[in-house]
Structure formats: structure tokens, C-alpha cells
């Protein structure tokens, strides 16, 4: 299979220093959050939601309050207490900041990856249906996509989040209790589906005009066969790039929703809820807001680097990374 598209793409990706750096950074973050139970059980000796408000911790042989009488949490102790409160405590409740960052990262990454997966799969289905059948099917699907796409992302998330925050979701077969991480996950999947489906639909419409698709239709292939065997394989490159960049955007959306109280619910940690907690102490303990924000930044940066690398490797003329942000199909300009 010398010179197959996949090999060419892999070779290009290996030569892309930005993409390699992004992959390394993302891998480091994944290792960081996966190590959460190890750190919590063997080093910090506490859980993410365990409070230590009135406790003292021994630092280099001297006892120190985890939370002072005025309510200021202890700052980073590094290894002074054998790894306990490595990055200090998280506020009045005196929870271990390091442990919460690691567990919170799991929640944030889980939500971002799952929501983007839901968004991408439903977008693929919608784009294939709209692009293959065209006509009224396309008219209905693209009208609905346009409407949802026109809604500001954060606000649609907030509207759904606040409406579901108290009573949970109860829609026939789907029933999710209030406070579940599935609520922000499903919200994200719904909100971002249009951002992925609209560019993909444009791509399907363009592919539909190409000879090999026309030939398959003329040869009597069933709609499913054309969609799954002819069109879908050609959508993967764009879909993968859109997915990667969407995970990055979903990280930011989760943070925004949780920060405002419409996402992950207390006491569960996510990087967004930790930012909200840190904001209350921004002047006395700025690190509590800076640390989770920095982790989000690094994760989003790594994903954008990977997305850029993939976009360039799979199709050098592709504008998929821009499409992922704008939710619009950006065809190559025809040379006049």
C-alpha cells in the first residue's frame, strides 16, 4: 500500500512539529488525570470531595491550619507535608486542590470527549441524509440546523442547563437525574451538532455531484450503500478534524456552563466548577482560578495543535479547522 492516502497523511503528521507537540501535551494531560486515584490514595491520602476545614496539617514538623480562621485556604505546600495539599487547599472547605484538579480534569475531559462524539456522530447522520436525499429532506434538516446554529452556543447551553438543573431530564425513554454529568454532556452534544453537521452537509452535497457517486447510483446501489460505502469514507478526514477542534471548544463550553452554575453541579469537581470556586477568592488566592484555567488552556491548545496538524496532513487545502469554529462550510474559492 505504498503511497496510500493514510500513509501519506501519517508521514505528513510525523513531520509536523506543532502536531507532535500537541499530541505530547495532550498525552501528558491524559496521564495526569488518569493518575488521579494513585495520587489521591498513595500521596495526598484524601478524596476529591473530602473536606478538611478544621484540620491541621504537619508541614516540616510544624502544624498548620488547612483553612485559617479568616477562611483563607493554605497555599501550595509542595512536598512539605509529604505531598498532602501539594497545591494547597481549595477554599473554605479545605479540599485538596491537586486531587480536585486531577479528578476535575477527568470530568471535564469525559464531558468534552463524549459530547463531541455525540455531536459528530449525529452530525454525520444528518449530513448524509440531507446531502444524499436533497430536496425537502435537506430543506428540513438544514433549516433546523440553521436555527440551532444561530443560537449563541453558551446561551443555548445555559437555557438548557438552568431548565434541567432542578428537575433533571425526563423525556420519554431518556431520564437523567439533576446534577448528573450527562446533562452538560448531552447539552454539549446537542449544541455543537450543528457546528459539525453544516460543514459536513456542504461536503456531502459537493461529493454527490462527483462521478463515482453518480456511477454508484446509476448502477442501482441502494441509498444506504451509497451513503455508507461511497460517501462516508470520504467524510472521515473532515469529520476527524471537526471532532478534534470540537473537543477543544467543548472544554471551553463546559468551563463556561459550570462557572455560571448551569453545568457540573457541586460538590463534583470539574475544571469549570473549580474556576467558579477560585473566582470567589481571586484576590486572596489567585492560583485557585489560575490553575484550572491554565489546565483548560493547555488542553485546548494541544487539541487545536492536533487539529491543525490533522487538517494539514489529511487535506492541505482543507479549511476544516476554521469550519469547526464558525460552523460554516467554507469551500475552496474557485480560481476565477
Amino acid at each position: 500500500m505504498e503511497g496510500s492516502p493514510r500513509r501519506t497523511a501519517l508521514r505528513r503528521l510525523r513531520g509536523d512539529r506543532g502536531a507532535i507537540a500537541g499530541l505530547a501535551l495532550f498525552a501528558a494531560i491524559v496521564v495526569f488525570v488518569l493518575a488521579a486515584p494513585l495520587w489521591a490514595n498513595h500521596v495526598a491520602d484524601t478524596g476529591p470531595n473530602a473536606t478538611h476545614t478544621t484540620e491541621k496539617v504537619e508541614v516540616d514538623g510544624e502544624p498548620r491550619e488547612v483553612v485559617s480562621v479568616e477562611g483563607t485556604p493554605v497555599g501550595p505546600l509542595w512536598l512539605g507535608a509529604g505531598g498532602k495539599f501539594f497545591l494547597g487547599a481549595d477554599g473554605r472547605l479545605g479540599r485538596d486542590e491537586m486531587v480536585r484538579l486531577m479528578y476535575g480534569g477527568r470530568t471535564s475531559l469525559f464531558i468534552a470527549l463524549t459530547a463531541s462524539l455525540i455531536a459528530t456522530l449525529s452530525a454525520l447522520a444528518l449530513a448524509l441524509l440531507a446531502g444524499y436525499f436533497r430536496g425537502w429532506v435537506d430543506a428540513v434538516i438544514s433549516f433546523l440546523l440553521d436555527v440551532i446554529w444561530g443560537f449563541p452556543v453558551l446561551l443555548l447551553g445555559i437555557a438548557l442547563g438552568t431548565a434541567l438543573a432542578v428537575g433533571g431530564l425526563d423525556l420519554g425513554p431518556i431520564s437523567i437525574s439533576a446534577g448528573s454529568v450527562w446533562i452538560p454532556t448531552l447539552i454539549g452534544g446537542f449544541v455543537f451538532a450543528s457546528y459539525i453537521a453544516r460543514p459536513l452537509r456542504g461536503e456531502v452535497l459537493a461529493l454527490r455531484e462527483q462521478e463515482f457517486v453518480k456511477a454508484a447510483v446509476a448502477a442501482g446501489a441502494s441509498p444506504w450503500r451509497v451513503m455508507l460505502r461511497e460517501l462516508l469514507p470520504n467524510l472521515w478526514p473532515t469529520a476527524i478534524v471537526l471532532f478534534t477542534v470540537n473537543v477543544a471548544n467543548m472544554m471551553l463550553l463546559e468551563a463556561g456552563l459550570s462557572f455560571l452554575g448551569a453545568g457540573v453541579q457541586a460538590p463534583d469537581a470539574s475544571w469549570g466548577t473549580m474556576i467558579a470556586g477560585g473566582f470567589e477568592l481571586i484576590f486572596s488566592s489567585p492560583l485557585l482560578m489560575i490553575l484550572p484555567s491554565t489546565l483548560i488552556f493547555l488542553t485546548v491548545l494541544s487539541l487545536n495543535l492536533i487539529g491543525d496538524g490533522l487538517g494539514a496532513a489529511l487535506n492541505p487545502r482543507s479549511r476544516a479547522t476554521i469550519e469547526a469554529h464558525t460552523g460554516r462550510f467554507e469551500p475552496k474559492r474557485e480560481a476565477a
Partner: protein
Amino acid sequence: MGAFLLKRLGRMLGVLFVISVIVFFIFNVMPNEPAAQIAGKSATPELIAQVEETWGFDDPLPVQYLTVMELTFTGELISYTRQLDVDEEIWKGLPATLSLCAGAAVIWLFFAVLFGYLSAFRAGRPTDRVLMLVSLVSISLPIFLVSALALNYLSYKLELFPSSGYVGLTEDPLDWAYHLVLPWTTMAVLFIGLYARVLRANLLEVMDEDHVRTARAKGLGERQVRVRHVLRNALLPIVTLFGLDFAALIGGAAIITEYIFSLGGIGQLTANSVADLDLPPVMALSMLAAFFVVVFNALVDIAYTWLDPRIKLERSR
């Protein structure tokens, strides 16, 4: 043009209707006990009964929908949790929000055009690489990191700028700008990167077009070719993008920025209402922000068709 205008406005009305149905569905149909949730966290049974009555929760859905729309558009929506007149609060917050968004937009467009232009005409060289890295960082920055650093260092430690509050433009223009510098910058930083990248990609494509070669061939100066022929054409798609993003600010970045910097605008009203799980304001604001986007989108489309007549032909096909 007339037929296009009518078609576009008709589509706009259709979208507005569907959005109002979606908002109605989210707040009045989907939740388990909508009346209790609209009445607020600490509502008494009497208040819930009153809400059920006013909002007509016993009526069939279409009648309910009409009741809710009437409440919303006659300005009779009330926040039961905080005893606020939603309509009044929105009008009060509008100046701060518009000041924030307009100022941020000027800053982000200026730097995006500068960065995009510089990197496209130096494509592949160090300037381009550095600027594109800066843009990637800008796209990846969470608003929280920028504002935490700005608040802690520029405002608290160095005491250069105030950390919160809004001063009316008519009261004191200098103080108005002074209070908005940090929020403006914070919000602008988030958009500079994306716009610089989009513009760079557009510029690179336009550069290869025949009319640019013709312009050079007929002896136009390099500067004139770059600005008049390349930049001008590359900016057109940015107009649509900008129209949408600007309109979406009210339902997006402005919510968090206003909350962090306590600007007291519509965004902060949204944030506070969410924190209290106070549904009526969130409902009205969702409708308002979405309508704003749709109307803006239609206006941009019409302006765009007027700027570039080729579009109309393409769309009417």
C-alpha cells in the same frame, strides 16, 4: 433585489418563530415541574399556584405558547425569585453591554486585520509563524485565564485599572473607557486569533486569483494591489462572520466578562439569574439574544448582497 429582500425577511420571520417555540419548549415543556421552577427555588405553594394560573399551565400547549409569548412581548415577565421586572432590567443593562461589545469588537478587528495581513504577506517566514502561534494561543485561551491574570496583576497588584464597575459614557467618557479597558481587552483577545487565521486563509486564496495578477501586470504599485485588490476582497467573508459573532456576544462572551468584571449589563443579569436558577429572566434573555442574532444575520446578508451582487445570483439558483 426586491424579491430577494422579501424572501430573506420571510425566512427571518420563520426562524424567529421556530426559535420562540424552542425557547418555549426548553422552559415550559421539558422540565418536570415547570411552574415550580419558574416560581423559583424558595417558592411557596401559593406562588406556584399563582404562576400556574398566570402562565396557563393547565391549557393545551398552543394556548400556553401564546400566553407565554404575550407575557414576554408585552414586558410583563417578572422574576419571582428576586421581584424584578425583567423588561426594566434589560433596558437598564443595555448601555453597559453595548459599550462592552462595541469596544471589544473595534480592538479585535484592528489586531486581527493587522495580524492576518502581516502573516499572509510573509507566509512561511518567521513573522508568519510567530503570528500564527500567537493566534493559536488566542483561540485556545479560556476567558477565565485572561481575566484572572488581568484582575490579579493589572488591577490588584499594580493597581493600573479598576477591577469592576461601569460608568456611563454620558457621565464621564474618560472614566467610561478607563473602566472598560480590561473587559474590552479580555474579550478581544478571544477573537483576534480566529479572525487573523480566517483573514490569512482568505488573503492567500485571493492572492492567487487572476484579477490580482492583472492588477500587477497593468503596473499598479504593490501596496495598492495588496490593499485595494487583495485585502478588500479577502475582507468580504469576514463581514458575515463578524455580523454573527458580534450579535452572538450578548449570549456568549459578554455573559462571563460582565459577571467577572461586575459591569451590570445584560450579561451579568443573565449570569446572576442562572446562579439563582431564576428562569423568567433567562427565558427572556435567550429569546432576546437569539432574535438579535437572527435579525443581525438577515441585515448582514442583505448588506452583503448589496456589496457583492454575485452572491444574489448564486443564492437564487
